[in-house]
């Protein structure tokens, strides 16, 4: 791994390198096509980038995404680019934008890059690379935002899509919820035991429940990052039927959150906690 520092530029390496480039042109997996600035802006906007974020651009070219994220959105970040000449340009661009202390550019293979620190990953790669990358990205922390334009991840449906001159896609890495879960709900008049079985395809969840052993439909299941919401209709107390709205966060083998029963003046809110019982 080589980190290209702006010092390099100051030493005049830029001037010396072009000759070398003729002899050792970098071997690239995708051609370099710069992303238009309007699209860069839209990508960072749709990902709701802010000062807390670490933005990683895979195939960072002249660094414009990472530099814009730092300069206009207050984020930190790094770019990954195989072409060292573009990296030098990126470092220079970062220096000119006054953000060289918050960004860096790595000359390496993006498939060999540690992405564990990223909260936002941006890409503009050819379709076949996107599909290879999909597996890697699905392993990132739930909630990590991924933004691309023009190219998508096949059958992984984007969570959001906008069109400002180009298609921009946002995906949110979903938590793993597939398996069997169980929780006890301290609701009057009797405690309920809720068994939940979930199947998952990316962020799309199919759920089946048993409330005290009775099959019960799960309505509107939604998974956004680590946030899981769904509703079931509680008919245990026939005189007081109500919908239970679950809203929780997935943390490994535990889901914890709040549960709302009833509406208006009848509304009660309580905590719930489900534990995984089988994968």
């Amino acid at each position, binding site marked *: 791994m080589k980190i290209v520092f702006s010092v390099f530029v100051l030493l005049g390496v830029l001037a010396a390198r072009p000759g070398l480039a003729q002899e050792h042109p970098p071997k690239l997996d995708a051609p370099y096509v710069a992303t238009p600035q309007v699209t860069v802006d839209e990508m960072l906007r749709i990902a709701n980038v802010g000062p807390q974020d670490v933005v990683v651009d895979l195939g960072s070219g002249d660094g414009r995404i990472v530099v814009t994220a730092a300069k206009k*959105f207050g984020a930190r970040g790094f770019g990954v680019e195989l072409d060292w000449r573009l990296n030098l340009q990126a470092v220079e661009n970062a220096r000119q934008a006054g953000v060289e202390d918050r960004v860096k550019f790595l000359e390496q293979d993006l498939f060999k890059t540690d992405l564990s620190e990223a909260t936002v990953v941006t890409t503009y790669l050819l379709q076949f690379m996107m599909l290879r990358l999909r597996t890697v990205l699905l392993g990132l922390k739930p909630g990590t935002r991924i933004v691309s334009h023009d190219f998508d991840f096949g059958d992984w449906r984007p969570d959001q899509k906008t069109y400002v001159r180009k298609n921009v896609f946002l995906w949110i890495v979903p938590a793993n919820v597939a398996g069997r879960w169980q929780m006890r709900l301290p609701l009057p008049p009797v405690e309920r035991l809720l068994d939940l079985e979930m199947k998952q395809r990316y962020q799309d969840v199919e759920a089946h429940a048993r409330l005290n052993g009775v099959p019960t439909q799960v309505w509107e299941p939604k998974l956004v990052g680590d946030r899981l919401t769904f509703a079931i209709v509680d008919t245990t107390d026939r005189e007081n039927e109500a919908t239970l709205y679950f809203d929780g966060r997935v943390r490994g083998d535990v889901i914890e959150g709040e549960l709302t029963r009833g509406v208006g*003046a009848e509304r009660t809110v309580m905590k719930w906690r489900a534990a995984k019982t089988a994968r």
Partner: protein
Amino acid sequence: MKAARSVAPAAAAAGLFAGAALAAAPAPPLDIPTPYLPSTTVAVDEMLRLGGVGPDDLVVDLGSGDGRIVIAAARDYGARGLGVELDPQLVAESQANARQAGVADRVSFRQGDALAVDIREATVVTLYLLPGLVEKLKPRLLAQLKPGTRIIAHDYGFEGWKPDRRVVISKTYMLYVVPASVAGRWRLTASLPSGEREFEFELEQQYQDIRGGARVPGGFLPAFEARLDGDRISFVLVEDRVSHRFEGRVSGTLLMEGTVRSGPGRNSGATAWRATRVVRGSDEG
């Protein structure tokens, strides 16, 4: 149709429990929890919840039956309400129910035809009517209701008008937000970083779906991500590699105004824009 619906799950559950009963001996008594049948209480709750009903609302229920929606809106959400019902006996029953619920001062019931009543003051309209009547009501609702008024339909929605939200909890609930009328030609002025600008701005509309753009000398800037939510409008114009995000409100039929942010980032300053209608277009809605 309702009968058929309730029979199917009952039969399925009976099948499930028959298996369990065979395995266990002696056979357990038949105190099996009845499978869920759509409960009106749950349906009423869901409609009011989807409508985001609150103390500032006037909820009008067309075909109000025994008054339960209007009464729940007043009792559980602090709203005011009006029920319209053809059957005078149900109207009398509703009034008695309202007194019993202690909300008689905030709700009223009128014997009459949903197609004839004046609903201009409503901020929320609830419907649980058969498709034919829902369709007949549509032009009236669009003509009378203020932009931003929420219409919540239960099971049967409007044909050709895509709901702004749709929730399925046992049954289907649809939320429609009455869109402002914006179709036509507007003169749009904005102070952009490039200076004071004036565009001829055109919009086509089908209910809440809008599209259009701005004419500039020698070209056309399409309005990207154009959205209309009640009286709130937003769109993006891209010129000279800079995106301008317009957000604003439509006031009446001749004016819309708001703020525009140019360029990327969180700190791009907002400046004012304003558009006046030059030609009113035909709303395809």
